[in-house]
């Protein structure tokens, strides 16, 4: 399998800091994979994202993106392959209209106008925002704003999208909008997704969840494996899935429950079996 991102013994220490923000992190992410990185505030999540697109340069170790080692010569090629959606949609708008905003990154690359128009229209259609192309970005809802931000990124046809807490400022409806969009984009094209998140639904959408703690990878597994950690998840920077919370509420009342993770449907079925055998 081709690796989209290879991180080899990466360490990073901020200038003037005594403690490394990332300490000897090694991680491979396959092309087309969706990896969620969780961890409490200050665990090194955002530092990792910034090392992947060269916003920060590693103190030691090597990052390889789409087969290209991250070096000064390659940095612009790599940034063309990696798009980041940040937390606050209001901080990333530059255009006077939605379409202008989506075109901004393409203009920066000096793309011919005809091709740009096609790309912008296509990107807005993919995020289901075509009807808003001449609107003012400031007047959109949070979920719509993030969809426009995502359109600005997919217009550049990246191989990798990094969601840096991209849903944390949205209301529940907006969060769902963005997650469904990312799912749909992945079905249409081979897109690698790296999401840095505290959101349980976003983590559940991933193929693999990685827990970062104190700048190091503490654990890695499928969402089900990670969610089985139950109440301690909150210390690791993630919410406890409701099914786990209920399971533990029942255990504390003396009910024997399975140790492995049950999603809501699984738990409903398990409880129904208990009910039927009463």
């Amino acid at each position: 399998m081709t690796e989209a991102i290879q991180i080899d013994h990466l360490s990073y220490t901020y200038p003037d800091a005594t403690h490394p923000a990332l300490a000897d992190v090694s991680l491979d992410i396959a092309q087309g994979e969706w990896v969620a990185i969780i961890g409490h505030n200050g665990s090194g999540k955002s530092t990792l994202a910034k090392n992947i697109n060269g916003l920060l340069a590693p103190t030691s170790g090597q990052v390889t993106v789409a087969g290209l080692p991250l070096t000064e010569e390659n940095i612009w090629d790599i940034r063309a392959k990696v798009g980041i959606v940040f937390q606050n949609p209001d901080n990333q708008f530059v255009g006077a209209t939605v379409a202008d905003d989506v075109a901004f990154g393409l203009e920066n690359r000096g793309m011919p106008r005809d091709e740009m128009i096609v790309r912008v229209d296509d990107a807005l259609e993919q995020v289901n925002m075509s009807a808003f192309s001449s609107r003012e970005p400031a007047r959109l809802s949070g979920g719509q704003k993030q969809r426009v931000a995502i359109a600005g990124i997919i217009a550049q046809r990246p191989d990798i999208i990094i969601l840096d807490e991209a849903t944390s400022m949205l209301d529940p409806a907006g969060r769902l909008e963005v997650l469904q969009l990312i799912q749909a984009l992945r079905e249409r094209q081979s897109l690698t997704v790296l999401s840095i998140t505290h959101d349980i639904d976003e983590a559940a959408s991933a193929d693999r969840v990685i827990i970062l703690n104190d700048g190091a990878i503490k654990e890695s597994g499928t969402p089900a494996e990670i969610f089985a950690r139950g109440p301690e998840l909150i210390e690791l920077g993630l919410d406890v899935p409701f099914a786990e919370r209920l399971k533990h509420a029942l255990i504390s009342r003396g009910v024997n429950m399975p140790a492995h993770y049950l999603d809501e449907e699984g738990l409903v079925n398990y409880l129904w079996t208990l009910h039927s055998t009463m």
Partner: protein
Amino acid sequence: MDITFDHVSFTYQAGTPFAGEGLRDVSTTISDHSYTAIIGHTGSGKSTLLQHLNALLKPTSGSVTIGDRVITAETNNKNLKPLRQKVGMVFQFAENQLFEQTVAKDIAFGPKNFGASDDEAAALAKQMVTLVGLPEEVLTQSPFDLSGGQMRRVAIAGVLAMQPQVLVLDEPTAGLDPAGRRDMMTMFERLHETQGLTIVLVTHQMDDVADFADHVLVMDQGALIKEGSPREIFADPDWLRAHQLGLPKATAMAEQLMAKGFRFDPLPLTSDELADQLLPQIGGAHHE
């Protein structure tokens, strides 16, 4: 101090072609010492309602009575300062309002504006920083060297330093991580219980409504379409869905269980309530 809305309507940019209705005929009372949650989807009028709680906006028609002050369209903007002291507002992403060189100075800024001496303001800063659960060492630090959650606590300490009777919170946990959210909500509960503060909370988190509020206002298109206790509000899941509002997670789970054949009365709002009602239906404890 009660806050009473009597047939309050508010029109944005009244008298211009851009006029838009913000509130329509809202009548309700936010009682002294209550913990009131305001819910409604984006654009439902929640923020417009909030800004009437300390006369940042004045009704286009109707009146808002805040303690002994009556605010109407005709109310003069002078002498509103005592009101602003009594009703403390914590806006969304309150940490964006920090500006001073040290945490102590930032917290002291409000009380000094309201006439406190330097010594009084400094003493308040020290007291409030502890109240929001931060160590006293941060007083001499720059607020900008703190983490996001700590910065937000400093901003809240600045509002508390004005010693308000009502604390208005507009999505106070947005953007915090789960542990930060939990700590922040626990802190508000403590302030409500130990300081006797009236809390008004705008939120999208239905679990917070179920866990903390004793009264709920539901807004839609500028109108107050329902009010009652969390139990009353969440008793009708179909109605909530029709208004694009969510359910507490325990209530949503109870619905899934009811579809199988479980029975709940009343509908549980928290995981503990759900577990208590489940226990007799799965054969009680020590089930194999």
